[in-house]
């Protein structure tokens, strides 16, 4: 018996508004570097964000390779333990704040106005400012590596008092850099919310928006809610270090555990900030290449909102071992497990969208399918970690490292790469070289699993994280991980090659570059002209 899927009307749009949208006069942009410094165009700023993010992805990747090279075999070979700690810390900070988050903001800049039929972001000059804060912030952060005493060495979670009493003198610069990056994220989030709420094409209701727009709207609210808390925490650190207060210092009546509560109140929503837009990208790609409308659009929206709300109630599952009372352990354990329900709804909807679809396996689809499978594996190891008594054993082992790399690398980063391959025809007017992209995919998926799967076993066997040397019984797992990491890192050069080749030329792409693609961005020409939708498109909702 064939299950009856509810018929989902394909979105229909008017194409007429596009043709004459180029007729308005625009002052010629300044030439050279000034054009990029002063641009207020959402497409150019989007490209800047993406290029910045890719650069930082490689810098953070090199730090990771230093770590993996040292861990290739037991004993201390290449770097001093102090430098090792700086590498693990900087790898985390750069990947979270300078690679993944700006990549999503870049995609949002490029695609949200196109997907909702807006001519630009709501606050174009603010947009320029939020981007240019980033190079400042991360130049400052990277420069701490060259300061006396070295850069941050206390892990990306910068727990006090490691990051206050025992921190290197450069910590004040780290705090300033994080403040600037945080302001950038907040301004970006305000801009995105203002754009989505006020600049949709006439007739487009909230529940007509593509899921990438929906997930970004919710992500932006998360950013508004938790980035100020991060700013508060690092301000307290700043005062503890420089002004003699004792927020986190037990000697003066403060409490280091308070730091962990405040940090994870920011930190847990932060990890969803890094995954919700990925859900949106995958929810655009899977229907396109399955040539079927997304199954359960409304439930996808509600599931995303539910995940966002729950993310505020689960922070202490990162601190099961600080000595929480039993009631708190149970509360945070159950609320964490509850997140598996809306996440399960999403995975179910993606799989059901694929069911009986007319599927083709172009590179965006391959990355999206890998996302669904590998993100689910990361979700399951997350469920294992949610079990408080089991977490007493797993806490701070490589099992945790395996878990969050599974949700971040084949999760967030694969989704970003899927999005890039999906929208490159729209950005450049050329299809990416499919053969090279497929090689990139297969190398990446082998590399990712070779790197991170053995970490599960090393962690379950008791290998602690953030150490430069380890006991002999972990040698084989670490050897595999290190080989995988170098393989994965090298294969990302293919990605750069594909992108460069695609910018320079390739098979010409039509306006609707993918057969099953339905959203508004596919109604403008490829490559998308600098100014689009100056006359708002008329959005038609097909009637049932």
């Amino acid at each position, binding site marked *: 018996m064939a299950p009856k899927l509810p018929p989902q009307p394909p979105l229909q749009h008017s194409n007429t508004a596009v043709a004459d949208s180029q007729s308005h006069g625009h002052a010629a942009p300044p030439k050279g570097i000034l054009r990029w410094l002063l641009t207020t165009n959402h497409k150019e700023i989007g490209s800047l964000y993406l290029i910045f993010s890719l650069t930082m992805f490689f810098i953070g990747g090199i730090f990771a390779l230093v770590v993996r090279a040292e861990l290739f075999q037991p004993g201390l070979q290449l770097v001093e333990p102090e430098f090792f700690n700086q590498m693990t810390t900087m790898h985390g900070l750069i990947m979270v704040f300078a690679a993944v988050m700006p990549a999503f903001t870049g995609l949002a800049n490029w695609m949200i106005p196109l997907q909702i039929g807006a001519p630009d972001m709501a606050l174009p000059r603010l947009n320029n400012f939020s981007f240019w804060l980033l190079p400042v912030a991360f130049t400052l952060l990277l420069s701490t590596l060259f300061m006396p005493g070295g850069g941050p060495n206390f892990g990306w979670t910068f727990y006090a008092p490691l990051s206050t009493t025992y921190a290197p003198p450069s910590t004040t610069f780290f705090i300033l850099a994080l403040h600037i990056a945080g302001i950038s994220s907040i301004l970006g989030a305000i801009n995105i919310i203002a754009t989505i*709420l006020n600049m949709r094409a006439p007739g487009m209701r909230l529940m007509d928006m593509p899921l990438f727009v929906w997930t970004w709207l919710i992500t932006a609210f998360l950013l*508004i*809610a938790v980035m100020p*808390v991060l700013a508060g925490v690092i301000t307290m650190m700043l005062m503890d270090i420089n002004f003699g*207060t004792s*927020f986190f210092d037990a*000697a*003066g009546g403060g409490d280091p555990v308070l730091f962990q509560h*405040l940090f994870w109140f920011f930190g847990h929503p932060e990890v969803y900030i890094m995954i919700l837009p990925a859900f949106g990208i995958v929810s655009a790609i899977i229907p396109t290449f399955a040539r079927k409308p997304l199954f359960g659009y409304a439930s996808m929206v509600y599931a995303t909102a539910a995940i966002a709300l729950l993310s505020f109630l689960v922070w202490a599952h990162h601190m099961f071992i600080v000595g929480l009372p039993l009631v708190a352990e149970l509360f945070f354990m159950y609320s964490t497990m509850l997140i598996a329900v809306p996440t399960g709804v999403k995975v179910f909807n993606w799989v059901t969208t694929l069911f009986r679809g007319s599927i083709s396996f172009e590179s965006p689809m391959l990355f999206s399918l890998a996302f669904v499978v590998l993100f689910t594996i990361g979700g399951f190891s997350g469920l294992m970690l949610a079990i408080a008594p089991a977490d007493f054993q797993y806490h701070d082992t490589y099992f945790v490292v395996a878990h969050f790399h599974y949700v971040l690398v084949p999760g967030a980063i694969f989704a970003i790469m899927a999005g890039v391959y999906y929208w490159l025809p729209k950005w450049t007017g050329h299809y990416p070289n499919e053969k090279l992209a497929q090689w990139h995919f297969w190398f990446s998926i082998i590399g990712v699993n070779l790197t991170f799967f053995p970490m599960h076993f090393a962690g379950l066997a008791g290998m602690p994280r953030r150490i430069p040397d380890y006991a002999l019984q972990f040698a084989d797992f670490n050897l595999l991980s290190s080989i995988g990491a170098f393989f994965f890192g090298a294969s990302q050069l293919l990605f750069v090659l594909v992108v460069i080749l695609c910018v320079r030329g390739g098979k010409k792409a039509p306006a609707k570059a993918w057969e099953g693609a339905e959203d508004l961005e596919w109604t403008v020409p490829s490559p998308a002209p600098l100014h689009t939708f100056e006359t708002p498109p008329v959005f038609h909702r097909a009637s049932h």
Partner: protein
Amino acid sequence: MDRREQAQVGVRRTVIRTLAVLVGMFAFAFALVPLYDVFCQITGINGKVDATAQSIVHEGVDESRYINVQFITRGSPGLPWQMSVETRQMSVHPGQMAEVDFTFTNNSHSENWGRAVPSVSPSRATTHLRKISCFCFEEQQLEGDERLTIPLVFQLARDLPEDINTITLVYTLYPVDRVIQSVSLDNALQSNTLNDSQSDLRNDLKNNKVVGETI
């Protein structure tokens, strides 16, 4: 009003509202600090003990059970003191008054200020531990090479939960002068030509007892 103007009004409204949320969340982060302390004090979570003297409650001694009370003392870098206790553990009945001597020794030749910060484990016992007299209520001053013995007088409440048989009291010594405590900063300052003026500042701070108990 045409569409574009309408959108601009909407954008302004959205920006004002998000900025309000932003300011609210920033304030909330700081409000969490006192809220957290109040929460910990009420529930006794975290082993944070009331830092004021309590009076003895005469509620009769529950001679049917013994509670094993253990004492642990810890020093900390930056304070050249040693803290010791006359006995590592003692057995008391709930409701019974008990006294135990702690000895502070200053191993350096100069005067220092220090403070012993208590922590109780299991944290559920915290609210059932009454300290009648404790050196932990205030900062201590020791002259160079001075040795000082101070008693701790305490009483366990009779309503101590049945399943608690052992209570551990940990005292950690902290220097009161915060500038001296920051070792890494000190190292950085040593290579600094401003060394002299900095140590003057440090001496000023040392004489000022208010520093270090800001919170």
